[in-house]
């Protein structure tokens, strides 16, 4: 597993709220400031919504995974689906204008995150969204010690 927390949800929008809670709680656990957390939640939510709407074309019977990790000053979210192959970097993302009803998701993702990477991995689309933090995040302590029960 690339991160400390991974979640898989059915591709139904009813689970987006739960996925946002996970991102929120993850950011709180690694001491990200509230304001930055809000934006990061937005970016990840837009990526998950796009998978449900576009990669799976609204089919609710599929699954989408989100892995959350932090490495030194890099906060990383990886979104994985087995849907229609789509590389978000191939697409032009002009600033949204007020007359258009859709088309703000990719813009928000790119504006909020510092890096968007795409790879096709077997039958999966894998998008990695990263954000460089001002200060190193609290270490996620993988294998960093022991907790004693009492």
């Amino acid at each position, binding site marked *: 597993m690339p991160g400390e927390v991974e979640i898989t949800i059915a591709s139904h*929008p*009813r689970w*987006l*709220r739960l996925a*946002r809670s996970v991102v929120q709680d993850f950011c709180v656990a690694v001491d990200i400031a509230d*304001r930055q957390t*809000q*934006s990061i*939640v*937005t970016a990840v*939510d*837009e990526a998950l*919504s796009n998978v*449900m*709407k576009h990669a799976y074309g609204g089919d609710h019977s599929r699954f989408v995974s989100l892995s959350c990790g932090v490495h030194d000053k890099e906060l990383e979210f990886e979104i994985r689906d087995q849907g229609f192959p789509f590389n978000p970097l191939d697409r032009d993302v002009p*600033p*949204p*204008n*007020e*007359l*258009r*009803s*859709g088309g*703000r*998701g990719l*813009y*928000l993702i790119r*504006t*909020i995150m510092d890096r968007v990477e795409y790879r096709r991995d077997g039958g999966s689309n894998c998008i990695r969204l990263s954000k460089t933090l001002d200060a190193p995040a609290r270490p996620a302590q993988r294998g960093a010690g022991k907790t004693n029960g009492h």
Partner: protein
Amino acid sequence: MDINVKRDAARSIVEVAGDIDLYSSPAFRETVLDLLKKRGQKNVIVNLSNVDYIDSSGVASLVEGLQEARKRSARFMLVGLKEGPRRVLELTLLLNVFEIHSTEEDALQS
């Protein structure tokens, strides 16, 4: 998300509570467009003071409301924007496009 509409001859107030996202925005969109299209309301106020989160599909619904209102020479106002939703409108370059007031009273008196 819960929606409550208060309506009289002069104006409609759409009170939303909860998150507006891909799951809930279709119901929100329909409520707003119905008021303008079917009810022919000339003043629509969307109260977002109990909304912590709005995604791009929610923003799209607001934009559609605004466009529909303009087409019909109606007013379309947002009130009670919290920090999160305000920031999303800012990032999508829409903060100066909408008529935004602090409270319902301010909107009604404007």
